[in-house]
Structures are given as C-alpha cells and as structure tokens.
C-alpha cells in the first residue's frame, strides 16, 4: 500500500519512512507513516477533497497544517467514540484510524445539498432574518427543522462517552506556551536561570515552524537545533515539557487552563490512561510564544481543494515529506512566501508562476521565480477551476491580460498574524501595527505575561530566538532568579514593512473570507451596506469568525473588507474579541473524573451499610444518601411507610439522623451567640436541657431550625437541618468573626463525629435502657422531655443522649462516635427486638412530622416568616437577634399572608397533592383567586386519612373552612377542611411519659 503514497517525497521530512501505518478515510484504505497527521497522510495519497462547507456544501480540501484549519474537518472514530468536526491537520495518524467526511449526502463527491449553491444570491448574509415568517406557525413545523437538519457539520454520537478523563494541577515559576524558536529559547533561558518551567506545546513534536522550514540556526539545520534544545530542556530537573498540550485559556491570578491529549494519538486509550487531561497551571510568569497564523489573499473560488496557505505547503514538504501537489502556482504579497516556491522546486514540484498582487514589482520575488523556473507575474488570481480539486487557475496581470495555468496546487499568503489570543483573554485589547499590517499584543497584557516571537510580531528567525531568550530571562528575573547574560542580540531592524493585499477585486465567483461558514467578500460588503459597520456587528450578521476555527485565518481579512466598504482606516476599525478556548476543548476533559456517580462525592450515613443489608431504598438528600424506607419483600411503598409509622407509634422505631448538621459551640459567650442567632432565648437554658430554636436571615425570613442542647455552662451542641448544615456553620462564623468578634465563642462542625439515631415510640425507653451501662437513669423524672446528657452505653462507649422528638412519641436521640455507628444500629435493633423495633426511613419520618405539624424543608422554603410558620410568638421581644428588625416589617406579619395550617380532605381517601394551590370553595383556579399552596402531604395511618400542611392566606383564622385544593397540572380538584396542623396528640402528652 505504501506505494499508493504518490505524493510522498521519499526520504524527506520527519516522518518515519521505515514504518507504515494504515488508516481509512470514507471507507477507503490508505497508508501513511508515523509522524504524519491525517492531513499529511491524505495529501501523500493524493487525496485533496476532504469535506464540505457549512452553508453551501462546497467541496473543501486542506488549507493549513495546524489547529487554525477551517476546512478539513472529519468525523474521527466510530460508534460511541465518534468525534465530529475533528481537524485532519491536527489528528496524529495511528494504525487503524477511521475517519469520515461530513456534511454531505450521499457522498463527499456527490452531495445533494450542494444545490444550495444555486441559491446563493438569496442566501446572502442574514437572509433568514428577512424571511421564513409566513405563516407564523410554519417556523417550528417546517422551516426550523429544515434549517437544523441542514446546519451543523458532523454527527454527534448519542452514546455515553466510553473513555475517561481526569484533571491535574501544576505550579511553576514560568509557563512557556509554544515550542518554536521563541518558546524553546524562552524555556531554556528561564530554566537555566533556575526557574521552575513548564513548556506546553499543542503539537506532538517540539519546534514549531522550525520543523517546517529549511532554516539554519547556529550553523545547524533548524530542525536539529530544535531537537538539541528539546534534549537540553529534558535534561534540566525543573523543566517539564508537555507535548500534545494546548493552553486554551488565561484566567485571573496566573491560572492557565490547558488540555493534554494523552491518548488521542492511539486507537483507544491504553488501560488506566485517560483520553485527555485538563491541567490547571498556576504560573507566576508566562511567556506566550504561540507563533503566527498565516492569512490567505482572497479571490474567486478560493475555496477549491488545492488552495493552500503558503506556509502550510512548506510544512507538508519539509516536515511531512509530502508534496501537496505536482504543479503549483504561488500567489503572495510577501517575501516569506517565496520560500514556498523555493522549497517546492527543491522537492521537484513544478512551480508555474509566482503571482504578486503588490503595486510594485519585487526584485527578490523575480529572482526566486527565476531560480524556481517560474514566471513572475504582477497581478491577481481571477478564477480557479476544478470543483472537486483545482485543475487550473486564471491569472490576470497588472496590464489586464489573463493567462490560464494548469496546476493542482495554489499556495497563497497575505502575510502573518500573531497568535495573540491568550494575551487578550483577560480583557486586553490588541494594538494595530501599521508597519506590519497586523494586530499585535497590546499594552494591557494579563499580569505576569510576556510575549515573544511571531506572537509578538517578531517575524524573523533571529528576532524569534532573541526575543524568546530575552522574555524567558525576564520572566525568571521576576521570579527572583538571576539569569546569565543573553546570548543573542536582537536584530537591529526586524520590521519588514508589509503592503498587504486582502482580496482580488473583480475576480470571478465567490471569494470566501470565512471558509467554514461560507462567508464571502460580498457578504461582508452587504452587511456594511445594511448598516452593520463594526466588526462585531458584521461577525454576528454574517457569522464571520464564528466557526470552529474562530476566524483564525479570516478575521483580519474581514475587518479589512469592512474598513474598505465603510471608507475607514483599517487600524481604526477594531477587531472582535478573542475568547477562550484557543482551540475547541472537549467537554469530557473539562469535567474530568466528575461524571456519572462521581459527579459529586457521596456522603454515607454511619448506618448505610447496615441499611443496605436490610434492603433499604435510598434517596439523595443533598450530598447524602439517606434511607427512604425499609420495604419488606412484596410490600408496596405506601404499605411500608404505613407499617414503619404505625410500628413507631405503637412499639418503637429507629431512624438514622446523623445527617443533621451538628455544631459544637463552646466558650463563655456561647449562650450569647445563640441568643443573637435564634429568635428565642438561649442564654439561660439550663445545663442538661435542649430547646427548639428558629433562625432568621437578616431580611427577616426563616433560615433554619433545630434543637440546641446545653452540655455544660460553656458548651452547646446545635443541630441544623441536613440541607442547611453548611450554610448555618458559615452563618455562625460570620456572626463570630464579622459581626461580633468581641464574643468569646468557638464553633466547629461535629456532623461527622457523631452517629446519631432517633429511637422513638412508647417502648423507646426500654430500648435505650437496655443499651445503657449500669447505674445510669433515664426515667421520666431523672431525664424528662428535652433533657440531655452524657452517658456510656454498650460497655463504656461514650454517648450523648437527648430526649427530643420529631415524631411526637416518647423518643431519644442517642449519639456515639461515628466509628461505632454501624455497631450501634445493630445493637439497637438487637436490644429492641423484644419490643418490636423496626427501622424507619425519611418517608415515615416525614409522615410523623406532618402529623405533628412540624415545619421542615418544604415549609422552610426561604419565603416564609416566623409568623407564617406559626412561630411568631416564639420571638423574644427583649433582645436584638439576626432578622429581628427586618422581620418586623409589616408585610412580613400581615394577616393576609399565607400561614401554616393543616388540611384534611373531605374524603379521607383523596390525596391532597403537595404543590397544589388553594382557592375558596367555590372559586375558580385562577391567579386572582390564589390563596396559598400545599407544602407537604402524607397518609396518616393513625387518623386513616390523607393530611397535609399548607400555607393559606390568613390560614390560622379559617379553621373549619372548606377550601378547594387545585392541581390543574394533573387535572385534580379536591375539597379539604382547614384544621390545626397538629393532627396527632396535639397536647403533646406522648412526649412526656
């Protein structure tokens, strides 16, 4: 098969000619060499047609040799690993590579939607804003689906990405971005000065343009110099070289985002290796040596396969050993591109002509043309023939004469633009350099950033080497190192003035500016005519620069056309904004490990494993998994809950409440702090007692509730709801540190330290007594309702016991150090066996608290006040506390507010769905009649009816009234009676036995 590489230049370039690699493109088998990209291998095999454009489905080839490629996008890999829109110019060839062209049907050569080209006059810039409006209903049904199908490029896989990703963090003194002449010099200078250096290179080889040119450095071929520099860097202990790593963004504080393509050059990631790795690099200094990006000169049908940037042609010839064509024409307005003619000729490619659009003839160009055996013509390209690949070009000379050249390659260059994207990510603006005719990095670089080489507008090799070295040394100096004297003097005059030509006037056919998005010169002009006169408006109206290449090869040409069309100086027109990422970044890499079950950490309660053994059903509560219920085989969910509730109310149940937030509050002023954060008083709470408290936000709305126990004069133990644990800790720290730093109080989270179980039910005491070590008394007299204390259980295990009840039954909460949590639940079950103990989950817990009318999450929704929750009377009038003043605003206390009540359906068997809204019995379900909503609902096995808690306008004054419960979302309406929220044991007798 190797024999099919008809355009391979034997022995030339850096590819490994000794080995072949086989691959497929559109189902056809080809071969290439290690060191090839898909693009170079395709070109080696004489394949020029690679893709179709976005709008007109025009046949497209390969324009560049790097990550700026707008045309040669393919679907790489198949099945779940399919990667649409992958640039053939950056895909490293591997054995078995399988790529498919995209945006064509039925085939690349014969594409039905290329009929769009016929309608190009109608499909001008922004045409869709002017049409598809009639009739209105047709948009969703007809126009939009049609547009959506036609738009987009490759097909995404709809299967879960099978590869894994990870993230890593790195720190350095100096981050060098790019490994061309400038980058290697910068890294060497900084590393030799002693700085910790990271060098990132998006390519798989170090060297940048050095790999692509036939330059010499210090008397050696540049490629050799690059290899030696890389080897020297590798040998330095504090220099880390990261190949295949693109720095995609600069962020505040010296943070750089980079993505390393760990396994993309392999068929599949090796075992244990990720596909890609996101790096967050924290650098004290950075040196951007990202090089330059060549821009084309535009002319009619400049998008034909075979039109290629002049620098890319050299890359294919010199680095990959591939002749991108057999017969070439060079069309350029600059000196640099003449090397293309030279290198092509040296590689045996016939160069027919060098076409120079500049007003003045160039003696140098004329000479190069002579040496390459080409004609030197001052003029422009008028047209390009050959839809699926260039067959010939027509050149119009300065005198108006035309000449047709048969050729299969047209190398074009309009000059170079610094790759300055990263220098603007923190809001910096590039500056216009009128001598170089390009944008260069501005003054307002991100803090700690320097720019060198072509990225700084230093285009000669000498200047790249010198500026790289100087920047590397300077960066090291900023980090406190003393670099040795610079080796390379900066060249005296390095600013070859450019006479840029942006496009050829009056050429035939569409001249494309933005290839991928099919934006032509005429579109930019049309936009200007319609009043879109700033680059950003033109971009948005025409989509210029919005494709996957982000206009790397087109933005400046676009601005130049706009400047001309609006009669302005190009330097004054400005530019659009560069944004991260520099090149597109896979979402998988940005997510790293955090997908699937690893999206977020999972917090497991101390009884988790035991609960699993019991067959518990779990539910996510924030980060926690909690047991929702413990179904017995064959039991329906409602039956389970009923059983758990009834058993708790008649015998005894146990529930893991360890997930509640627990905060240890110590110090002489602990009571005072609590006084200020709770609406009710805590300072005088006796030692050995607990109290329920409600906290407000400073705006007067309820924030959280819970019980707090006083374990010693200077020691309280606060509990919060599971959901708000972090928020409350943070709030307390705010109060301590910001509001009242004078208080002598210390808080620390104890949530993880204690495994805590609620043991509830008439027989609860018996169970606890069975666990208590001898000589301790928890009788009702010794340890009444709301008592708390330290005990030992199960032979010396330290325990805290609280006589608290959420269920409304006689109940205890028993806490032990969490490492005993698993053993304790087993011990509780064992001790309770003779009393009929059964575990209950959060569902049963919810039923019982609703039966008792205790507010919880659905009622503490951040929109309710103490008044709404029926707790207004609890508020102390003697002290200031968080939320007091704002909580007294009239609107937070007025009678008409929705306040908490109970609801019983007139028919006990009818559910009152949570989230239903309430209206008067005879009123319609409309906004004007809305009087509140149902917060929580349960079936009460004890009362044998559904019950609910609701927030009802003026609710407490409407006991006995029948209201309509409306759930139009599910088409239900029910009548219910307003009642007290305390459904079961309203006097609380059961708590106190």
């Amino acid at each position, binding site marked *: 098969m190797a024999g099919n590489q008809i355009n391979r230049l034997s022995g030339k370039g850096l590819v490994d000619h000794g080995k072949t690699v086989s691959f497929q493109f559109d189902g056809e088998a080809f071969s290439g060499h290690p060191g090839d990209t898909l693009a170079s291998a395709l070109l080696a095999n004489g394949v020029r047609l690679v893709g179709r454009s976005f709008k007109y489905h025009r046949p497209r080839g390969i324009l560049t040799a790097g990550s700026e490629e707008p045309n040669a996008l393919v679907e790489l890999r198949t099945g779940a690993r399919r990667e649409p829109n992958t640039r053939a110019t950056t895909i490293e060839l591997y054995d078995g590579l399988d790529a498919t062209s995209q945006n064509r049907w039925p085939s690349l050569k014969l594409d039905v939607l290329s009929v769009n080209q016929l309608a190009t006059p109608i499909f001008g810039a922004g045409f869709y804003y*002017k049409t598809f409006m009639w009739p209105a209903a047709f948009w969703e049904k007809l126009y939009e689906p049609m547009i959506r199908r036609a738009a987009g490029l490759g097909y995404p896989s709809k299967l879960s990405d099978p590869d894994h990703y990870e993230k890593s963090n790195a720190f350095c003194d100096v981050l060098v971005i790019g490994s061309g002449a400038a980058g290697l010099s910068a890294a060497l200078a900084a590393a030799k000065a002693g700085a910790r250096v990271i060098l990132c290179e998006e390519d798989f080889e170090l060297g940048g343009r050095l790999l692509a040119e036939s330059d010499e450095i210090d008397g050696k071929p540049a490629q050799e110099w690059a290899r030696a520099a890389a080897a020297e860097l590798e040998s330095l202990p504090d220099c880390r070289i990261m190949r295949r790593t693109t720095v995609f963004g600069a962020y505040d504080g010296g943070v750089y985002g980079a993505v390393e393509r760990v396994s993309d050059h392999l068929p599949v990631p090796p075992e244990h290796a990720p596909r890609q790795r996101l790096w967050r690099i924290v650098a004290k200094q950075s040196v951007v040596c990202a090089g330059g990006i060549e821009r084309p000169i535009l002319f009619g049908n400049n998008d034909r396969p075979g039109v290629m940037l002049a620098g890319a042609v050299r890359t294919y010839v010199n680095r990959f050993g591939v002749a991108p064509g057999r017969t070439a024409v060079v069309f350029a307005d600059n000196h640099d591109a003449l090397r293309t003619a030279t290198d092509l000729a040296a590689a045996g490619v016939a160069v027919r002509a060098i076409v120079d659009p500049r007003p003045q003839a160039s003696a140098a160009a004329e000479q190069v043309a002579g040496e390459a055996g080409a004609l030197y013509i001052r003029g422009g390209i008028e047209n390009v023939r050959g839809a699926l690949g260039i067959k010939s070009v027509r050149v119009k000379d300065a005198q108006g004469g035309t000449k047709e050249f048969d050729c299969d390659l047209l190398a074009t260059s309009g000059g170079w633009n610094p790759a300055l994207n990263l220098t603007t990510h923190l809001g910096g603006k590039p500056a216009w350099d009128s001598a170089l005719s390009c944008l260069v990095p501005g003054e307002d670089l991100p803090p700690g950033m320097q720019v060198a080489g072509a990225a700084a507008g230093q285009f000669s090799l000498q200047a790249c080497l010198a500026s790289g070295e100087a920047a590397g040394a300077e960066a090291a100096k900023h980090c406190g190192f003393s670099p040795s004297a610079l080796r390379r003097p900066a060249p005296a005059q390095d600013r070859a003035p450019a006479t840029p030509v942006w496009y050829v006037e009056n050429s035939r056919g569409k001249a494309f500016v933005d290839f991928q998005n099919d934006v032509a010169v005429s579109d930019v002009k049309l936009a200007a005519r319609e009043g879109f006169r700033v680059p950003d408006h033109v971009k948005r109206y025409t989509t210029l620069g919005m494709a996957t290449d982000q206009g790397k090869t087109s933005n400046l040409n676009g601005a130049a056309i706009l400047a001309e069309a609006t009669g302005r100086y190009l330097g004054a027109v400005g530019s659009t904004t560069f944004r991260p990422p520099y090149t597109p970044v896979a979402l998988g890499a940005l997510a790293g490990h955090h997908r699937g079950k690893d999206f977020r950490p999972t917090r497991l309660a101390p009884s988790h494993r035991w609960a699993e053994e019991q067959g518990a059903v779990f539910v996510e509560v924030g980060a926690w998994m909690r047991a929702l219920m413990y179904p017995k085989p064959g039991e329906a969910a409602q039956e389970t809950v009923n059983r758990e509730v009834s058993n708790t109310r008649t015998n005894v149940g146990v529930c893991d409440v360890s997930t509640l937030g627990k905060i240890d509050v110590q110090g002489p002023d602990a009571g005072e702090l609590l006084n200020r954060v709770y609406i009710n008083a805590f300072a005088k709470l006796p030692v050995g007692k607990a109290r329920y408290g409600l906290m407000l936000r400073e705006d007067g709305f309820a924030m959280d509730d819970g019980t707090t126990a006083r374990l010693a004069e200077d020691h309280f133990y606060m509990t919060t709801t599971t959901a708000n644990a972090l928020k409350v800790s943070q709030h307390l720290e705010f109060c301590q540190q910001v509001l009242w730093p004078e208080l002598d109080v210390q808080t620390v989270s104890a949530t993880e330290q204690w495994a805590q179980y609620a043991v509830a039910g008439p027989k609860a005491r018996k169970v606890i007594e069975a666990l208590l070590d001898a000589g301790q008394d928890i009788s009702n007299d010794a340890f009444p309702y709301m008592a708390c204390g330290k005990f030992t259980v199960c032979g010396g295990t330290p325990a805290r016991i609280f006589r608290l009840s959420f269920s409304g039954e006689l109940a205890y909460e028993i806490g032990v150090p969490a490492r005993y949590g698993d053993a304790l639940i087993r011990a509780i079950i064992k001790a309770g066996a003779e009393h009929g103990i059964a575990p209950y989950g959060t569902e049963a817990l919810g039923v019982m608290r609703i039966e008792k009318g205790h507010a919880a999450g659905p009622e503490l929704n951040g929109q309710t006040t103490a008044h709404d929750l029926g707790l207004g009377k609890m508020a102390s009038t003697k002290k200031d506390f968080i939320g007091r003043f704002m909580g007294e605003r009239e609107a937070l206390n007025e009678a008409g507010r929705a306040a908490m009540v109970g609801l019983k359906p007139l028919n006990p068997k009818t559910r009152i769905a949570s989230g239903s809204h309430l209206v008067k019995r005879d009123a319609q379900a409309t906004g004007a009649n809305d009087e509140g909503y149902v917060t929580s609902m349960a079936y009460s096995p004890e009362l044998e009816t559904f019950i609910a808690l609701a927030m009802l306008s003026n609710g407490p004054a409407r006991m006995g009234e029948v209201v309509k419960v409306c759930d139009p979302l599910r088409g239900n309406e029910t009548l219910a009676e307003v009642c007290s929220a305390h459904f079961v044991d309203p006097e609380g007798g059961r708590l106190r036995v």
Partner: protein
Amino acid sequence: MRYSLASLITNALSGNRNWKPVWREPEPKPSYDVIIVGGGGHGLSTAHYLAKEHGITNVAVIEKSYIGSGNVGRNTTIVRSNYLLPGNEPFYEWSMKLWEGLEQDINYNAMVSQRGVLNVFHSDGQRDAFVRRGNAMRFYGADAELLDKEQVRALVPFVDFDNARFPVRGGLFQPRGGTVRHDAVAWGYGRSADSRGVDIIQNCAVTGFRIENGRIVGVETEKGFIGAKKVALAVAGSSSRVAQMAGLRLPIEAHVLQAFVTEGIKPLLDTVITFGAGHFYCSQSDKGGLVFGGDIDGYNTYAQRGNLPVVEDVAEGGMALIPAIGRLRILRSWGGLLDMSMDGSPIIDKTPVDGLYFNGGWCYGGFKATPASGWCYAHLIATGEPHPYAAAYRFDRFGSGRVIDEKGMGAQPNLH
C-alpha cells in the same frame, strides 16, 4: 423596506446591491421627548412600544457601544414563563404572548422557536416544588406539564438515566417555552423603532445626568449634552454605574454569567433542558452548536468574563446529565454582566428624580422578558402609571418587605 419573499427575490436579482441600512445613523438632536439609555433588548423594545403603542416617536436610544453588544447579544436565548410568584408569573406570561406575535409585529424573523423547556427533577421534594410552580403557571393561563421519567426519556433519550449521581425522576415541561435568536431581537426591535422615527445613537456613552430642582432635563454624553423631558434607563449590567451618576444607590450588584457554545453538530437536542442537581442548562442553536450555561461566577464584577472553576462546574454538570457530550468541544465561552437584584426580581419604576425612570434587576433572566419589559416600561413612561403586569416591580418593596423572592435566597444577589 418591508421584508417579504418578494423583496428578497427582487434584491437577489439585483445582486443584493439595493438593500438599505437596517437603521439610520443619525446625529443626536438637541433634545427629545424621551431618551432611553441603553440599546439592549429592553431599551430597543421600549422604544418600539413607545412609538407603536403610545405614538411617542421623538425618542432617542443612546447606546455606548453597538446595539446588541450587551446581554441581549450574549445570552443563552431561553424564553419561558415558568415562574412561581404572583408578582412575576402574569408578567412573564404576557411576555410569552408578545414573543408569539413578535415577528409579525416587527417584520423581522427572530426565530422564535417554541421547542419546549424541560426542567428535570431528582427527588420528591423537587417534584413538589415544581408542581407548585407548574400550578402557579396554570393559574395564570400558562402551559405546564408534569412529566414522569419515561416521558422525559422520550424527549431526551441520551440523558443519563442509569448511572447518575442524581438520577432524573421526571420533569416540568413548558411546551410553549423555547429559544429566540438573540441578536435578531435587538436588530428587529431597533429596525422597527427606527422606521417609526426613533433615533438610535450608537457609540455614545451617557456620562452624566443634568438634574435641575429634582427634575431631569437631559443627559451628558460623549457627543455632548442632549436635552430630554424624560429619561429612561435600561442598561442592565451597568445599572448601578449609570444610576450612580444620578445619585441613586440601588438594591443591585453586578455579576458575571458565562455562556458556552460547542462546535456545530447535526441535531441532537430538540428541546431546552435544565439540570436541577448540577448547574447546567442547554439548547441547540439552529446553527448546530449546543448553547449552554450554568451558575454565575458569584462575585461582583464588571469584567464581562469569567473564571475557570465555573467553566469546569458547567462541564461537570453537562457530563453528568448527558454523558454523550464528552467528545463534543466547547468552541467559545464568554460572559455577560448581570444586574442581580436583592430578591432576584426586576424593577420597573420611577426614581426619586422627576422624569427619570429605571428598568433593571433582570439577573440572568431578562432576555425572555424583553417584549413585556419594553411594553410595561413604555406604559410607565408614557402614562406615569405602572402597568398592571409590572405593578410589583417597585423600589419600595425592599423597605416594605413585599419582596419577590422566587428562590427564597434572601438579600444575597449571588445566590439568586
């Protein structure tokens, strides 16, 4: 020039050489009846409705940059009316109605796409909260459906139902919700206002206000003083900065929200989806890019760009919801300045300065409000009375406690 099939063809036949500017580029007049500060969606829609509904055409919209350069041109384009509280829901539902007739009204295709907005939930508690919201929507005549897991699967089969940390258990769906082409909204309203005589003055920042005896008399700008009987602010993320020039201190903080777009792909996602457990919401643009976003960065800023932690957070949410997007690539990320109000709801009101009006506090949700905001603001400016749909959007609600706090987060703008 009216857009029609005929005008499109006629122009195509003449090489598209005869299209006229979509708006004029007038020099400012010495004075106007109304000056609107801010050429975003709200400013331009206000101008359109002032002219069309109230016949007030001696109006200038003054924009410091190019029109649409603000949030109207950088948002994730989601429109919906799935609000909870009575202060909000009727307003946003009115906005939905205006969207539905927008293109005929302004003769501009803004690609109003009613592809549906799906909010998934993961627990019974979240479901109940969504039910409360869905019912509130139905009470005010909006559409809402509660979907179970299988119905969600039918809409978005590639969501992770099997291996998720927070499994999807259902969703609240608003079929009439969807997306609208962001830029087209600015341009369409601008074109319509211009054609009715409104002057759109670009690249002209307002730098101060001239207030005499407590009454506004005009604005200082980069192009000099311009007199006005009434001045109406609609500067979104710049609200505090601009209001401060008139001596006002607002219940607003400026924050940044980032948004993202992937490379264009063939159709994947046919609806708008919002992931409750992570910070991620996503739709696919007609061009093929997945457009998505997440949480705000969370600190006061005027920098119009965000930081890496939120980029990662959003990607993590995306991968957790749709693990098939791992190999799709983010093409561009950007930020917009949000006027985050203290209760998360907007303000459309008079100010203590006579003749100076304020519109702001839209947080990350004002794009969908663009038509109704313009409608109600124009009403306020023209009549001096708040429009009934926007009657709750007053400054004094913070003093009285009649806040409109959809999320129940309190006076903490970065949490709304």
